[in-house]
């Protein structure tokens, strides 16, 4: 079924917003009663409204709200925080070391320690005295050190000499033992050689003697005649 929806197509929103005059509303309702298409649109609109009211909002995932938008502010804040810590540390150390800053003769003077209570001459005398004491202490300490070093060196030398002597004696003993051992060995060798030679000589003498006896036996009967 075909309908002429004008001007009702423009009035659907106003009808839903209750913005139609009474006469417009009556005419629209009359149109609705005869137009299933417009009825369906109004129903769809009410359905959408109901769905919107039932919509449970989905939770937002975690995201960086500050880093994304305040990079410079955060960085600036960090710098100020470190500057504050540094300033606190500086003041703490200054207080601990009793730092005093003063302006004298066109220049700054920075001093440490408590405020001086004596005049400069007294300070100079005290410094001279302290320096003299320090010098004497150092000289005395140096002498002691020298004496200790000298004594130590003497002991070290004696120890070294003793060790050298001991080593020398030991070496001599070892040399003598080696010499005796060599001589003994040589003597044994000589005795062995002599024994062999003597044995050979004895064998030759024996053979000579037998030869002489044999010769005498041959010569003796001839001498009887």
């Amino acid at each position, binding site marked *: 079924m075909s309908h002429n929806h004008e001007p009702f*197509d*423009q009035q*659907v*929103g*106003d009808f839903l*917003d209750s*913005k139609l005059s009474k006469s417009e509303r009556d005419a629209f309702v009359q149109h609705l009663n005869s137009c299933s298409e417009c009825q*369906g*649109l109004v*129903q*769809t*609109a009410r*359905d*959408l*409204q109901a*769905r*919107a009211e*039932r*919509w449970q*909002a*989905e*939770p*937002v*995932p975690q*995201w960086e*709200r*500050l880093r*994304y*938008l*305040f990079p410079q*502010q*955060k960085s600036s*804040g960090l710098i100020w925080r470190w500057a504050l810590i540094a300033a606190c540390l500086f003041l703490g150390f200054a207080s601990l070391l009793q730092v005093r800053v003063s302006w004298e003769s066109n220049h700054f003077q920075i001093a440490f320690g408590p405020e001086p209570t004596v005049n400069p001459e007294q300070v100079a005398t005290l410094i001279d005295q302290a320096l003299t004491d320090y010098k004497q202490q150092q000289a005395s300490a140096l002498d002691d050190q020298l004496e200790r070093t000298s004594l130590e060196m003497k002991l070290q030398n004696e120890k070294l000499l003793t060790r050298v002597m001991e080593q020398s004696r030991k070496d001599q003993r070892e040399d003598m033992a080696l010499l005796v051992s060599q001589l003994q060995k040589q003597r044994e060798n000589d005795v062995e050689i002599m024994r062999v030679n003597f044995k050979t000589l004895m064998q030759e003498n024996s053979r000579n003697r037998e030869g002489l006896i044999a010769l005498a036996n041959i010569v003796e009967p001839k001498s009887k005649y």
Partner: protein
Amino acid sequence: MFGLVNDQALAKKALEGSGDAWERLVKKHEKNIYNYGLRMLGSPDQALDLLQETFFAVFRNLHQYDGVGSFSGWILKIASNRCIDLLRKRNPAAPKDDPDPAFEGLTETRLNPEETLHLSAEKNRLVQAMQKLPPEQAVILELKFFHGLTLDEVADHCGTSTNTVKSRFYSALKKMKIHLEAQNVA
């Protein structure tokens, strides 16, 4: 009224560099914008992108907020503009309106339906049906039903004439009727 003053005070403190004020302001409005993005874009990732881009734009223009009108309406306007820009970038060939009735109901879904599966069945059906509307029509339904604006207020919000909004509203309703009925049949 108290909320308006409170938002203004937070905005002022945020402009002065208070991260705490900014965070409170964002937390107060982020759920509204995120859910707007879910319905309009159909994807949690893109909804989060829209949320971040919106609040980035809000922060950059915070000094321009004059306190006339609600802060939430001002943020919503920024989000709507960003959202339509995103949808236009996604599908630059899509017509703003499709006056020829022969094409009604044939509009392609703007997003892969799988991307909306994380939602409940009813929400999923609604989001999928919304995805089939041209962005300019979808935003009218969004503002009308989910934010309670009259069509005159929607026209003011979108910077278009009331008659254009009424025509788009009528077309959007017709398409939604078709898509929702098709879902019921399926």
